[in-house]
């Protein structure tokens, strides 16, 4: 998050940078123009300085050549005269007279010092028939020599008078100009000889540089400004000013300011701006960091910390950031609010839990009470059924026994009416006994716990069919039995179900020839549905549900025997196996009894 914020700040700064660069470019351009002006000024100044010596020399020579002494043949006298003149002139190093044959007639440097004159000077002067100058090197000294023709009476050049400027004078003239750092001022003669330089005159003065690109450039750009690499290889902005004498170029004065220096100010300014900009950026970044930390991240961290605490279960945790109007503060405030309601909810929940716990305890108490009540009831029921089975049966047995004894008594053997009544008593007792047995078995059916296992119904049904068919061996019964599946359940109780249903089918098809009994199964994922269909007497669908009630019968006992407990037992057992029971039929057209056994729920 913080990084993103910083990137955003940097992105904002990019246009500012571009503007700065543009400004710098403009400034650079104007600085460059300024530098050009400066270099031109400087070169003009230098040229003016240098031209002074040229003009001075011409005037001196022009004046001196008017003296008669210059044509005199007395060398000693002439020499003496020249030496006197030299003393008056501080700028000159030497004066002398050259014969047209190139031999020096006399000079001021003492005897034997110079035998032959500077040949190029003589030639130049003779050619021009006027003042001319050339470089003069003698031993280690380099100086500029100017020559002036001395005409004889015949109008021909009789002698040439020369004057040598003091070595270093031109260079010194250059140093008088205040040159910027790294700037170079040079003086060339028209032949490309370096006459003066500032700085480092010793290294350069006296060199023949006519063939260098730099001097070629000077010749090409007279009076102009150009940028080039100097003789020392440094890139500079150069200006050339030419010192002219009688329209002839005598000296080329160049001043060069290094490009780096020329643009230094612009660069300095740019650097200044850059530093300022960088400082601004740093400041902005710091501000962004601080701001994001203070205004955004710290609250965000507070929210996160509070959220973690709450996640850890400490619902009392809050960000504590109530003041502030930023989104994050509002978020924090909302968070606190949420945490508050969470805590409240938690408290409520705890209260509710406590209540539930106490409710549960109460409930459990009540369940325990109910259970014990139920257990009591169950025990009572058991005691009841026990006494039913024991006590109720005893009087029946007595009735039956004594009636039987009477019937066997020889006194009543012949009395048909008595025999009939005794038989009625005996039958009634038997019937009641059966009813008691059925009732007991029905009540046992509900209480007895199931022994659940896999039950192979095909086998079970086959056994039951065999057993039931054996009871009525004379009957013609056509059995159609499908292959039945295995189910989970209590084998004994399931056997009871099949026994009841199959017995019923056999019983109620009495009189049909043949009786047809079909047993089929239909399976889904959830249950298996079994159907026992017969072609017996059937029943009225209006009473279909009554069939499954305890002691409910649709037929008279003298028509079909039975107590009416069988189907009630079937329904109860099937229900305990998670299934349903139902019946379809039509009077006189047979009946179909169906039941399902759940594959999903365990028998209970």
């Amino acid at each position, binding site marked *: 998050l913080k990084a993103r914020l910083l990137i955003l700040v940097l992105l904002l700064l990019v246009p500012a940078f571009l503007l700065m660069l543009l400004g710098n470019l403009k400034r650079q351009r104007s600085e460059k123009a300024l530098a050009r002006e400066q270099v031109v000024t400087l070169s003009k100044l230098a040229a003016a300085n240098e031209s002074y010596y040229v003009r001075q020399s011409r005037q001196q020579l022009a004046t001196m050549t008017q003296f008669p002494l210059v044509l005199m043949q007395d060398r000693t006298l002439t020499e003496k005269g020249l030496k006197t003149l030299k003393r008056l002139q501080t700028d000159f190093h030497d004066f002398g007279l050259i014969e047209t044959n190139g031999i020096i007639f006399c000079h001021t440097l003492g005897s034997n010092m110079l035998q032959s004159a500077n040949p190029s000077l003589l030639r130049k002067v003779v050619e021009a028939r006027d003042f001319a100058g050339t470089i003069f090197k003698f031993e280690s000294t380099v100086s500029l020599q100017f020559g002036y023709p001395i005409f004889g009476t015949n109008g021909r050049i009789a002698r040439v008078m020369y004057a040598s400027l003091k070595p270093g004078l031109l260079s010194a003239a250059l140093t008088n100009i205040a040159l910027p750092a790294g700037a170079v001022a040079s003086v060339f003669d028209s032949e490309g000889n370096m006459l003066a330089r500032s700085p480092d005159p010793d290294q350069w003065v006296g060199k023949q540089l006519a063939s260098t690109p730099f001097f070629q450039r000077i010749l090409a750009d007279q009076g102009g400004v150009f940028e080039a690499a100097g003789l020392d290889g440094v890139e500079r902005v150069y200006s050339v000013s030419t010192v002219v004498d009688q329209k002839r170029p005598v000296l080329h004065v160049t001043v060069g300011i290094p490009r780096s220096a020329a643009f230094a100010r612009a660069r300095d300014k740019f650097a200044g701006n850059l530093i300022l900009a960088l400082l601004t950026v740093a400041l902005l970044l710091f501000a962004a960091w601080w701001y994001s930390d203070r205004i955004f991240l710290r609250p965000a961290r507070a929210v996160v910390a509070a959220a973690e605490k709450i996640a850890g279960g400490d619902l009392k945790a809050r960000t504590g950031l109530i003041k502030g109007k930023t989104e994050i503060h509002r978020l924090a405030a909302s968070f606190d609010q949420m945490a508050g309601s969470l805590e409240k909810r938690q408290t409520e929940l705890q209260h509710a839990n406590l209540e539930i716990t106490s409710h549960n305890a109460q409930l459990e108490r009540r369940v325990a009470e109910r259970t014990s009540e139920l257990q009591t009831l169950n025990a009572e029921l058991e005691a009841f059924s026990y006494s039913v089975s*024991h006590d109720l*049966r005893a009087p*029946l047995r007595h009735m039956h026994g004594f009636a039987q004894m009477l019937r066997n008594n020889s006194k009543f053997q012949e009395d048909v009416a008595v025999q009939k009544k005794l038989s009625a008593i005996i039958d009634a007792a038997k019937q009641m006994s059966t009813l008691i047995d059925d009732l007991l078995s029905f009540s046992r059916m509900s209480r007895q716990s199931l022994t659940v296992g896999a039950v192979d119904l095909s086998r079970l049904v086959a056994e039951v069919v065999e057993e039931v068919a054996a009871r009525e061996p004379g009957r013609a019964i056509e059995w159609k039995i499908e292959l039945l599946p295995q189910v989970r359940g209590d084998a004994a109780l399931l056997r009871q179900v099949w026994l009841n249903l199959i017995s019923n089918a056999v019983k109620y098809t009495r009189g049909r020839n043949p009786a047809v009994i079909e047993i089929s199964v239909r399976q889904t994922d959830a249950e298996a549905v079994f159907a026992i269909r017969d072609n017996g007497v059937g029943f009225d669908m209006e009473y279909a549900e009554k069939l499954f009630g305890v002691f409910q019968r649709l037929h008279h006992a003298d028509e079909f025997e039975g107590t009416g407990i069988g189907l009630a037992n079937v329904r109860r057992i099937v229900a305990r196996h998670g299934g349903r029971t139902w019946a379809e039929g039509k009077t006189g057209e047979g009946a179909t009894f169906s039941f399902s056994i759940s594959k999903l729920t365990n028998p209970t």
Partner: protein
Amino acid sequence: MRSLNRILLVEDNARDVELSLAALAECHLANEVTVMRDGADALDYLFRRGKFGDRPTENPAVILLDLKMPKVDGLEVLARIKQSPELQMIPIVMLTSSQEERDLVESYKRGVNAYIVKPIDFDQFVEAVKQLGLFWAILNQPPPGTARHL
């Protein structure tokens, strides 16, 4: 002092006693029967206590014991007999109206020798008693100290 009968019938219900005797009479065993009308009397008789303190020392060949009786019930009597070193050899047949499984299980746990549910049908009852008497009172080789005379 008359001699000891071979069959001890413990039965509280007078009608049942009559019916049982009638059934035993059918197999000519009625004269061999001593009847006790409750469990307490039966135990006193067997252990020769109280009013039976002077009965002969021989034991009955078989005891027909009703399950449900006042004071001391059949299971209790059965337990006492089977705990007694002198009496535990006497065969005991439970005669009961109850078809309850727990009575049956409880009886066998306490060492009963046979268990007969009194049928409603008198003829069947007679048949059952006949079989019983035949086996326990006549055919079975009784333990030593059992009444033998007839």
